[in-house]
């Protein structure tokens, strides 16, 4: 449990769930919440207000936040960032989102949270503050589970999605490192100001290299998807990460299979983007904002 007296924030590696039954879930991912995108934050908070108590589950498949420097930002008073901007603004976003998630969790909407590539350092404290449960990546959900008559739902693989961008070798090397427990512990042991600075540098680099790479490298590879679904024994999958919202119907080993890709959110862009998926009346439907 999260009552340790360790000096740094505690990574949330333990106690993850990899199988779950969902009754009437809403799926979102890639919200990239931060103080710089106030409309996106407001729309997400409004969505939480709308679904509080009305959806059985909210499932967040990664990249809830634009970045996460460690759970100690939840208690941080801000301080001065080297670049002059106010890191306290993003810290307040984290606190506000945790409180909003906790409100719907206390109204019996179960909140499930998966790490993305940007917020892989979301830790035990945030998960607890948000009243959420951490999902393994990938996890398998039975969607549309019914109590009476007892019926299992649609077996569906849930993932952030970055693990299947297998052609992006440098990214996969980074991903392995970022998810390594020792690397995380060492990183979190650095002072918060230093972590903010390192994350800022990494994000600047990532933006540059993204612009230079051919677009297809950034998408998932069909072989990796097929392998993951085969291994999990499922014919349905939901993921985010690629910012290419779609429903892909295809043949997996000769039988029909479906992969849904969640949209990213940016309500501050023109045109605004966002949304998700909702299980309703026995099927997955697009959730428009």
């Amino acid at each position, binding site marked *: 449990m999260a009552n340790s007296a360790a000096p740094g924030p505690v990574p949330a590696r333990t106690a993850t769930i990899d199988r779950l039954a969902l009754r009437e879930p809403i799926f979102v991912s890639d919200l990239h919440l931060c103080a710089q995108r106030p409309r996106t934050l407001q729309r997400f908070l409004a969505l939480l207000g709308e679904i509080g108590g009305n959806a059985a589950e909210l499932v967040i498949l990664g990249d809830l936040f634009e970045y996460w420097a460690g759970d100690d930002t939840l208690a941080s008073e801000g301080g001065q960032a080297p670049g002059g901007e106010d890191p306290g603004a993003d810290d307040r976003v984290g606190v506000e989102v945790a409180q909003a998630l906790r409100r719907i969790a206390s109204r019996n909407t179960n909140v499930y949270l998966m790490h993305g590539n940007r917020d892989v350092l979301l830790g035990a404290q945030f998960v607890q503050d948000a009243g959420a449960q951490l999902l393994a990546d990938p996890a398998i959900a039975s969607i549309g589970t019914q109590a009476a008559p007892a019926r299992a739902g649609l077996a569906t693989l849930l993932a952030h999605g970055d693990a299947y961008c297998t052609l992006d070798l440098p990214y996969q090397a980074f991903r392995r490192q970022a998810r390594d427990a020792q690397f995380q512990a060492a990183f979190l042991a650095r002072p918060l100001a230093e972590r903010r600075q390192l994350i800022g540098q990494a994000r600047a680099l990532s933006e540059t290299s993204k612009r230079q790479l051919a677009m297809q490298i950034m998408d998932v590879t069909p072989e990796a998807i097929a392998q993951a679904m085969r291994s*999990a024994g499922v014919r349905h999958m939901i993921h985010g990460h690629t910012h290419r919202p779609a429903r892909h119907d295809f043949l997996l080993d000769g039988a029909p299979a479906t992969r849904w890709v969640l949209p990213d959110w940016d309500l501050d862009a023109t045109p605004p983007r966002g949304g998700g998926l909702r299980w309703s009346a026995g099927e997955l439907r697009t959730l428009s904002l």
Partner: protein
Amino acid sequence: MVRLHTNHGVIGIELDAERAPKTVENFLKYVRLGHYDNTLFHRVINGFMIQGGGFEAGMRQKPTAASVENEATNGLRNTKYTVAMARTSDPHSATSQFFINVADNDFLNHSAPSGQGWGYCVFGKVVEGIDVVDKIKSVRTSRSGGHQDVPEEDVLIERAEADA
């Protein structure tokens, strides 16, 4: 046979030592050590499963012994009223926690010997007190101590007994 004496009645579980030898041995070890006495069914999801064997009242987690190999390749399926080992996302991490399926949960079965495909090892089935399981699966639940789907009133395994 193992009998779980709960505050809702007795659940009799027939173990399949032939198909899941290591898992059954592991389970019986915890039974004989008295590990399950005064533990909770702490995760109850009607339509899915009821899970217990790891927490005492107040959601205090009990220490466990080393984990047991996942024998989910044994062909036993997670059908209604079968009993299987709970674990973390590491396939071979089961210790004391187990669950009783209250639906046919095909998605928990073994599909491949890697990562997500390992599945959950069935090692027995409920042969007495199905009505007790049905009572437990229907209790009211809420969030407690960082966990979801926790019964609002404790569902307690007062003691567990093994035949012979």
